[in-house]
């Protein structure tokens, strides 16, 4: 199977530059604004869109992404609406890969089979489910691959050479390398370690490796793009959403623009 993700990374390889992968939470701060944000992302320089499926208890995420999830849930976001957002996005954009990222429970409750069918129909290309390690591949990973979706796995600094083969066995699309030990958006990645680890992981897989967790600025992105196939930016964008809200926590005229501006800035770093 070839997904939009595979096509995209092949094209970028030809261009000789790294991908910019952007993460925002679906429905943050509300459905309409969220759609406006993602619709503008490709033009701002995003190569792949990661869309967070909100969950009340995101155990691998820092305060920024947890708060974004709670904002989305408060505004009435559900799994159904997240899939509808992708459907709406696909009306105008047929090329940009869309990856849904989140936790297993909302998918499990939605029903794995129905979720995969609806996600595929909506135009989703891949899934990242934080709390499904390879030990639980039968749950969602294998069915997702069968349904024609990429299952993108997180590799971490604790993924040593012994463990790497298991982690990569059923991974497809790309590998998301978590550059720090910890939760999203807190510590800055140690660039020397990132370089060494990406090099080490490359000996285990031919898949593109994108680096994320803690990437905030164009300079960091630029440095990481030298060694990796892609850079993931999440908490920084989610923080830009939060900073643009009014006192009641509602979207303002500046919200979507604030995110797009930051993406543009970081995109310059990635392709420099």
């Amino acid at each position, binding site marked *: 199977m070839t997904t939009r993700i595979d096509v995209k990374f092949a094209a970028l390889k030809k261009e000789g530059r790294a991908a910019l992968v952007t993460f925002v939470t679906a429905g943050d701060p509300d459905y309409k604004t969220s759609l406006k944000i993602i619709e503008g992302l490709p033009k701002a320089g995003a190569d792949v869109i990661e869309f967070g499926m*909100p*969950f*009340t*208890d*995101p*155990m*691998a995420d*820092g*305060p920024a992404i*947890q*708060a974004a999830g*709670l904002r989305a*849930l408060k505004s009435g976001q*559900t*799994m159904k609406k997240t899939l509808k957002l992708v459907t709406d996005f696909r009306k105008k954009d047929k090329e940009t890969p869309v990856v849904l990222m989140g*936790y*297993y*429970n*909302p*998918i*499990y*409750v*939605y029903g794995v089979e129905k979720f995969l069918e609806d996600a595929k129909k909506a135009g989703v290309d891949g899934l990242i489910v*934080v*709390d*499904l*390690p390879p*030990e*639980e591949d039968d749950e969602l990973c294998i069915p997702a691959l069968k349904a024609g979706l990429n299952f993108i*796995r*997180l*590799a*971490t*600094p*604790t*993924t*040593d050479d012994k*463990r790497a083969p298991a*982690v990569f066995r059923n991974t497809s699309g790309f590998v998301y390398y*978590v550059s720090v*030990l*910890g*939760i999203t958006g*807190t*510590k800055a990645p140690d660039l020397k370690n990132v370089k060494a680890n990406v090099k080490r992981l490359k000996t285990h897989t031919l898949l593109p490796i994108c680096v994320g967790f803690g990437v905030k600025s164009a300079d960091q992105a630029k440095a990481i793009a030298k060694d990796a196939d892609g850079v993931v930016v999440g908490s920084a964008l989610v923080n830009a959403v939060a900073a643009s809200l009014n006192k009641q926590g509602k979207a303002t005229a500046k919200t979507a623009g604030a995110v797009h501006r930051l993406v543009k800035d970081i995109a310059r770093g990635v392709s420099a």
Partner: protein
Amino acid sequence: MNNIEPNSFRTGPDEKGLFGIYGGRFVAETLMPLILELEQAYKDAKADPSFQKELDGFLEHYVGRPSPLYFAERLTEHLGGAKIYFKRDELNHTGAHKINNVMGQILLARRMGKKRIIAETGAGQHGVATATACARFGLPCVVYMGEVDIERQKPNVFRMKLLGAEVIPAKSGSRTLKDALNEALRDWVANVEDTFYCIGTVAGPHPYPEMVRDFQSVIGRETKRQMMEREGRLPDSLVAAIGGGSNAMGLFHPFLDDRSVAIYGVEAAGHGIHTKTGHAASITGGRPGILHGNRTYLLMDDDGQIIEGHSISAGLDYPGIGPEHAWLHDIGRANYVSATDKEALSAFQLCCKLEGIIPALEPAHALAHVIKLAPTLPKDHLMVMNMCGRGDKDIFTVADILGVKL
């Protein structure tokens, strides 16, 4: 209930950490190597007689085990039915069953060479037990506790601080036990090299449900022996309160294959099971889902978002339950029932007056079921209730509800 009955109910979990469909290892990749390391270390410790010997020594001389099996004569008379015994785990050092598990895990952490201990706590009993054991062994200890619970359980917060622990408020989400667990997991992800996560109940990713159960099973093993000494036979029924379910699993597990023993787990029905967010009865009022590393019964909405439970008891308002309980429920080996805030409160008061024992609000829920059940049973029916904690920590809550100013 249609499953074929297994030859033994005591063989779980399997190598994937599953009890039927429940349990498992639903954690982020960062934690996976640690969980595998812990599983191996626990296996090795279990097979090493010197580990059990060391643990037994601390349980006897530091914790104060065995705890008595006490015939509650006046309560029995009052209810006029089954002969009621209390397994008195409230007499343990630190006032609850939590220390049984903590001693085991801290000794294991030392064996693994871990230098820093983290824990989550709801009512504060597990936090106090962990802080206690850490003080005893000179280990730095960080306890995560929901901001709301810190406000509700001030005496326990002060106890932990006296014992040298750092108490960090969980300010995210609903700011109670489930959020404290999230924060502890986040800490662990960030400090994988030197930190041991001491989980307080029979939940979380494999091997925790198995390991905590094993450490708590001392309750049931003692009960079996003591009952044989007192009555010359096994009890007819067991009753225990369930939040995550560690005291209940500790009492139940050694009896699972004794089919004549009826087993009752009592969940917190709060304001009533019919209320949408007013109870904490995961089995009675929830359904299977995935949270905190395992599949089990959870309180959640139709979209799979976790709902905060309510109970008068801060130790029971967790929105999940240990996976082995979920399995025992599905196959029908144990009965899961519930008691409301009101029923627990009146059981609490009755126990004070008839037995001179101030129970914690957690076992007061178990007692509430004993009050319902015992009068319907013959006088030669032997019933054991786990008095898993003492009520000193709850007097403020109870006074408040009774309208008494302290």
